[in-house]
């Protein structure tokens, strides 16, 4: 995995995925004893090949290759059910957040296209106006995915209900927001702290 290497603790001078995650989050993946309570409550378990306890297991087996090549971590809804129910404080939701952050850098080609397009469109839109502008978000998303007609039939109904703003909001602090984006940079900074 092409993750930037923090201080090494591995047997052969190599940093394991569990160590990288520990460095990023302070969490100890080895605490997971595979009870499966996380997966029992996961709303997306019916649709993902890797359920939360599988993700924890693969972290402990140092299988970044399998984790990053699978769309499952990108289908996580971040609903925090797994973390709330984990009897041993493993915080799978935070682990999943950190895995996504690593995958953004090391395996962006495996991110499901619509999900990647949504996150990119969302963050671009915030940088453009400081606040989310739904029409701008949807248009950016459509251009990235080519799903031009998705939900298009709802436009008149949204307009009729006064729910679709046609002009982006613009805050005074937009330069401030852009500066924060620039200072936070990509995922790598986190590892280098």
């Amino acid at each position, binding site marked *: 995995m092409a993750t930037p290497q923090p201080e090494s603790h591995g047997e052969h001078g190599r940093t394991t995925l569990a160590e990288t995650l520990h460095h*990023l989050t*302070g969490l100890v993946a080895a605490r997971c004893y595979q009870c499966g309570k996380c997966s029992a409550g996961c*709303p*997306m378990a*019916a*649709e993902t090949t890797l359920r939360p306890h599988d993700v924890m297991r693969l972290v402990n087996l140092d299988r970044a290759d399998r984790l990053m090549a699978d769309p499952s971590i990108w*289908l996580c*809804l*971040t*609903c*925090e*059910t797994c*973390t*709330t129910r984990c009897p041993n404080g493993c*915080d799978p*939701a935070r682990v999943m*957040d*950190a895995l996504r*952050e690593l995958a*953004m850098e090391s395996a962006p080609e495996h991110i*499901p296209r*619509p*999900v990647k*397009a*949504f*996150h990119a469109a*969302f*963050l671009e839109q*915030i940088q453009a106006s*400081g*606040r*989310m*502008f*739904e029409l701008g978000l*949807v248009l950016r*998303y459509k251009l990235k995915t080519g799903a031009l007609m*998705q939900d298009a039939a*709802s436009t008149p*109904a*949204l307009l009729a*209900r*006064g*729910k*679709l*703003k046609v002009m982006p*909001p613009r*805050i*005074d*602090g937009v330069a401030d*927001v852009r*500066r*924060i*984006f620039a*200072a*936070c*940079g990509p*995922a790598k*900074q*986190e590892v280098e*702290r």
Partner: protein
Amino acid sequence: MKLGYYPGCSLHATGREYGESTVATLRALEVELREIDDWSCCGATSAHATNHLLSVALPARNLALAEAQGLDEVLAPCAACFSRLATARHEIAADAALAQRVASVLDRPFTNHVAVRNVVDVLRASIPALKAKVMKPLAGMKVACYYGCLLLRPTEIAGFDDPEAPTSMEDVVRATGATPVGWNMRLECCGAALSLARTSSVVRLGRAIVEDARRAGADAIAVACPMCHSNLDFRQSAMTRRGEAEMPVVYLTELVGLALGIDPAELGLGRHFVSTSSLVARAAAPPPAPAPAKVPQQGAAKGVA
């Protein structure tokens, strides 16, 4: 009571009736809201799914602005904004290294002392005032209280109610005169931010929620999150099969507003995709007679027979 107010992006757009009803309802309950000047987006799911530092720094900018305005508490009605703001506050307090990095990113004074609250918490605290001010008790209305994810989870961040057996929404609903129903899906996720990128999942999850509320005999689902609302109201036509009754989805603030006698238009009840007219009509009806509600129904049945 005076509270800072972080409406968040949705409450200015597709969730605008949540903003309208929050402002109107809390005004009636004598909670004064002061909007954070020049607030910016909290980063929502897209920031915390992809960049941890950004996911803490964006909410922190808003907490710092609130501090500069002299606010001690901020109300974030959107469950996702609430979660992002409260998570940022929690993580900065717990991690000195992170706090330092956020401080350098923010480049403005920030002491992290602003508490973050959500609407359910504030309404529950206002129950005595609410009971005293109810003009149109929603008697006979059965409500499925839907918490979803981020109002309650993770526990140490949300912290105002039990994550597995919460009662706060039901307590508020009871104070309006309506009856909360017992049902199974109140803590399940609606699909949240995958609404656009994976609509099929949102329809699958939403359908299970709406079906369960229907089975429990609810007249409406009450929510406290614009994403839950959009996924259950805007997307409901995609999950309803022929012959199934539509299920109105209302914000908790709208229900409370109705009971307080606030004009339904002011509460934004006309902006929904699933009509709320049955609920509005019920609130407008004169208070039921003290006799048990079953009596007129039996009379009507006899008349038909």
